[in-house]
């Protein structure tokens, strides 16, 4: 056990990963925000119960991996009890206008391109570029081989390039 107080460690982890995890879960759950919140909360709860020392070195991969399991689990039960998003009354936290991308038009185009990728491609893309996982970690999370991850990522990039230029 390190002497660092756990609370601040957990807090740091939550702050660091809540956004990418939520974005990832939300995308995987086809925009179900509540479901994403459930999955991410559960992920962090599990983190608290798990052995920190063994997780620490590959924290991101662990988090995404648990979150992914949760999401798949939820999708499995989802078909039995379909939920109607319209029954939720949640404040719409509208995205701030992205400052990072100067060309709004290009951004929209790119976003549309991403939406047209296969689910797998979207997933690896997000895990690599948003969550910052390495190929190896993505392989661990998704159960693919490392070279397969590379292949899918490259396919995604090629498709996007074609979309952007074509």
């Amino acid at each position, binding site marked *: 056990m390190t002497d660092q107080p756990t609370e601040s460690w957990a807090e740091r982890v939550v702050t660091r990963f809540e956004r990418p995890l939520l974005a990832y879960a939300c995308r995987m759950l086809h925009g179900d925000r509540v479901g994403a919140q459930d999955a991410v909360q559960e992920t962090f709860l599990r983190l608290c119960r798990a052995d920190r020392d063994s997780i620490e070195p590959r924290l991101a991969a662990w988090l995404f991996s648990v979150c992914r399991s949760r999401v798949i689990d939820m999708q499995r039960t989802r078909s039995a009890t379909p939920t109607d998003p319209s029954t939720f009354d949640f404040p719409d936290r509208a995205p701030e206008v992205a400052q990072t991308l100067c060309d709004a038009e290009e951004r929209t185009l*790119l976003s549309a391109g991403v939406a047209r990728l296969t689910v797998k491609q979207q997933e690896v893309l997000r895990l690599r570029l948003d969550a910052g996982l390495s190929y190896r970690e993505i392989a661990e999370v998704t159960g693919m081989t490392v070279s397969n991850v590379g292949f899918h990522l490259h396919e995604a990039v090629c498709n996007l390039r074609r979309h952007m230029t074509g």
Partner: protein
Amino acid sequence: MSDPIWNDPRITAYALGELAGDEKSRFEGELQADPVLAEAVEEARRLTDQLRSLFAGEHHDELDPQRREAVLAQASEAEVASADPMRMASGGRSGFWHRYSAPLALAASVGVIAVGFAMTRRLTPLGRQTMMRTNDAAPAPASRVAAPLGGPVMREQAEGLSRDGAIDSLGDAPADQLNANGLNGLHDRFSVERLAEAQAQAEVGSGKAAESVLSQREKSRDVKEAKMEGKVQADDYALAVTANAGLSKRERGDLVVQPLPAMPFGIPAPGGAPGPGKPQAAGESSGKVEEFRWLGSDVASRRELEAVRAEMRTKMRASQAEFDKMVGDAPFGEAIDEGRGPGIPGDRFEPITDNPFLRVGEQPLSTFSVDVDTASYSKVRDYLVRAHELPRPDAVRIEEMLNYFDYGYAPPEAGAEHPFAARVEIVTCPWNVDHRLARIALQGKRLQAEQRPPCNLVFLIDTSGSMDAPNKLPLVQEGMQLLLSKLDRDDRVAIVTYAGSAGLVLDATPGDESAKIRRALTELAAGGSTNGGAGITLAYQTARDHFIAGGANRVILCTDGDFNVGTTGTDELVRIVEREAKGGVFLTVLGFGMGNHNDAMLEQISGRGNGNYAFIDTDKEARKVLVQQADATLVTIAKDVKLQIEFNPNRVAAYRLIGYENRVLAKEDFNDDKKDAGEIGAGHSVTALYEIVPAGKEVDAISPPVDTLKYQSVGKPNDAAASDETMTLKLRYKAPDGDTSRLVEFPVTDTGKGFDDADIHVRFAAAVAGFGMKLRSSPYAGKWTLADVRKTAAAAIGDDPHGLRAEFVELVRAAATLRSENE
């Protein structure tokens, strides 16, 4: 735009910095030599950078504040727990399962498991459902679950196991996470069993354990308070384990035992005002638990402990009811009367939907297969008596409750053409006086002792770890001893066990070598997990090896439930069982114990195996099934028995078959000899009830009739309809070794008998059906209350040689108490 140069995945990999070592330097060499490739890499880099910022721009959602708090609370919780010396003493996290067998030393750690498990059970359903209900109210599902006591690792494990298919999802998790969970590989779903196993010890140890754990942790709190809370929570473990809620609404009501724990149980928060509920109750009960610490395996003290726990549960329920009233909010306030039945997550029941009323004009034929099983009734009894819980509605099969009782039907006369006698009686329906109630009774012929053919019995006994409970393996052994007394030297007995591996414990032995059989029996010991598939194969093989032509060849499966390791799913097992039944070896399933009971599968495989299924909860029940009804259990007199009733549209407007939901057949199946149906054993009786809406009465319980057809006319009554016959009963059956069915057919006339004029057996059967409907919260129970059920049953007890009917009356009373319906 397909640049061949873009076919190289290294472009993206390099742009993302994923290439290393030789590969990297080689690729860099190529880049230098090929400006087009370099350009491509540059493009990929640009694109991925854009994507990065695109994704980053989507980061507008963060975790809801309540959820965040819950997580952080859990984090500090875990910190304390990991510093807990009790957990260290148990040898770290992964060692739990393998060491709890030293109960005394580890009573404390079992307590941790126990409480952790209790908490866990709530996590899954709470998460989503509360969310859906509370709308804009604080969505804080898991914050309630951030249990003060949760043994984190155990909880994780229990949770993983508690959801079907969760193993798969865990399979996606990193391997060492799994190890930390103590799961031995992905297929060891049977750790659930071990949990159940731990239960026995937890029951005795929990008070003490929780106390010590708590006193470690609740330093800031008054020690006495901490003790009290610990007891209540530890006991709740039993509640949670025996009360498998899973999906029931009541689950959410369990909020009471969650972290606002002090409140409902009236344990004053430090320095705060006393909570609602019954402060004295908790205090008293825990005082009693104090007296029942670990007392070895002393059965008496266990029973007393059980009694105290039952009492506590009643009190908890009372305070919960009060709390619910106080809260008054729908999600937590409702469902007090909804049975959730006990059991751990392994308990699986097929959902049942009540048969609806059907119009005779549209569906004049009602077809179903007989069912002589009785398991549902004993299970209901087990819940009500032992667990003090209402059974889950899906655990209540009305036909099995009806068939549990002996209604004194006269057997067919000696030399009669058919092996059973059938009768129908129609009286006023007690829960709706405008309706009529038709009771159909079949009685199989009884065998004289000398008539019983020799038996070739193979006992297939589940000796997995979960069977190591007083109401399981010992009860199996006791039951078999009873049965042995009925066997003689023409009979053969073999014993096959299955746990981690299947084994032939006793090869076929003549029934009079009781010493040898007894020895084999007493040497059975529980341990390991279940490989039902291999066991069944071996058992059937043994039965075939010693097949007695013209005798009763039967595999008797004694188990508490799941067949998860080894062969396969239900379908595969059903196929084996079905194939063997065709070969003349039938199957009887005896279910034991409460937890881990895969009811749906056991019913299915026994049905397909030309067999019967009984649930044995007490030694009395063992005696009933294995001694009093030994002939019926062992000797089949008719198989594939189907009933078809044709109603007369001039007499009957609509009808409803009560129970038999999973036995209903298509009308075409009746004459189809290839369609499997139920069996009747020697002396078995079958009772079925129809609620009938007489012609001319409005049928309000069903949807309006469909329009008449434009191009054809159907359902025109003919001359026969003018008779005063209400219905015609048709019966098909095959001889036990026959392949073609025989048809029995006779008309039934309603003589207009009132309910009070009916004999006690008809009235008692009506009471049993009424009880079943009430337990299922069936909308068809009309105005009947449990009090009506009880009065009717109490007035129809009659001789009651074995006290079964009197016991029924007590069950109704118990159910009424649980529903706070007592007058």
